[in-house]
């Protein structure tokens, strides 16, 4: 194609057309902070892990169990908590491992895969925590229904009325769906904006290699 040859010739001559950056400027530049998406992902990830770890550390059910006089259940919750800590540590290790692999010197495709993998680790962590929140809710409701004497009255009412039962279950379901929906939306907005271009380019690269 004749035009491409013309373009190539022009392109290779274009070296003199750029305002040259001095050594002094380069010194200054390398001491500035990067604003790459990897850095943003790191910041968001640390915030998310901190938030969820904080929430899981302080959602203390012990007092509640004491209140309703069922201290024997505390042991189960302690085991549950230790398992939870172990999982947090595994997640942080996996995140760190994925994060340090990211390098701008690999191929474009590998770089994108590494970034997405790091991102996904945090996503799994958040889904795990959300699952835990739901599980805790279910357990808490069950305990409340089975063990809490104050619930007896409510239980009787619900048992006597099928519609009330349906409404209760429906309400719980709706709250859960709303809760998950909000998270999904938050994710779409925050990471959607940050990663839109990366996803598009990654898709394009994969399409080439089909």
């Amino acid at each position, binding site marked *: 194609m004749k035009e491409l040859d013309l373009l190539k010739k022009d392109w290779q001559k274009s070296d003199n057309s750029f305002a040259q950056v001095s050594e002094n400027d380069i010194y200054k530049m*390398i001491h500035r902070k990067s604003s790459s998406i990897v850095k943003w992902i790191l910041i968001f990830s640390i915030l998310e892990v901190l938030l969820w770890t904080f929430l899981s550390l302080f959602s203390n059910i012990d007092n509640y169990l004491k209140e309703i006089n069922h201290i024997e259940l505390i042991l189960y919750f302690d085991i549950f908590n230790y398992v939870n800590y172990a999982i947090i540590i595994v997640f942080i290790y996996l995140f760190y491992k994925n994060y340090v692999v990211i390098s701008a010197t690999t191929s*474009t495709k590998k770089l994108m895969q590494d970034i997405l993998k790091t991102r996904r680790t945090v996503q799994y962590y958040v889904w795990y925590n959300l699952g835990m929140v739901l599980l805790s809710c279910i357990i808490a409701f069950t305990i409340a229904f089975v063990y809490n004497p104050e619930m007896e009255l409510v239980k009787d009412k619900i048992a006597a009325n099928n519609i009330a039962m349906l409404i209760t279950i429906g309400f719980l379901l709706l709250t859960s769906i709303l809760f998950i929906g909000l998270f999904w939306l938050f994710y779409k907005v925050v990471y959607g904006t940050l990663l839109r271009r990366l996803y*598009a380019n990654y898709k394009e690269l994969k399409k*080439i*290699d089909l």
Partner: protein
Amino acid sequence: MSDSLEHSFVKQLRENQNIIHKICRLYTNDDDAHKDLFQEITIQLWKAFPKFRGDSKFSTWAYRVALNTAITLYRKTKRSINTVEFEGRQHFLNDVEYDYEEEEKLKLMYKAVYQLNDIEKALIFMYLEDKDYHEISETLGISEVNARVKMNRIKGKLKKILNPLGI
């Protein structure tokens, strides 16, 4: 990091900065964005520099990091519009070769190149820099055959943009 490492980096980058400028020109639309991307590339290069062994040329190593930064790592601070004011861009043929028709063609060519997506721009960039398909495929992480196929498609696409009626 030691001062000598820093010094060696700064010197080599200054000598090879045009390759970075070319990538910045391809991926940005105005001077501010150009400078912004140049800076991010410089930071990424500096971060990766301790691993640069010197078994390839600095420029070869640098353009790969620069492309990766432009395509993947760089977060545009402003939303960019995909049209570029070309009238202001100077052409680089010198006076002896000046040819009105060629200049018009070049303008159209640059305009067409700017309409390509990020990955296609990377391919065209390497083509214009005379990189072989082995290097292109390694840089992008795709197979050599597919790099070749894609390049032919891009050429076709450019042809179509330049001559939409196919006359």
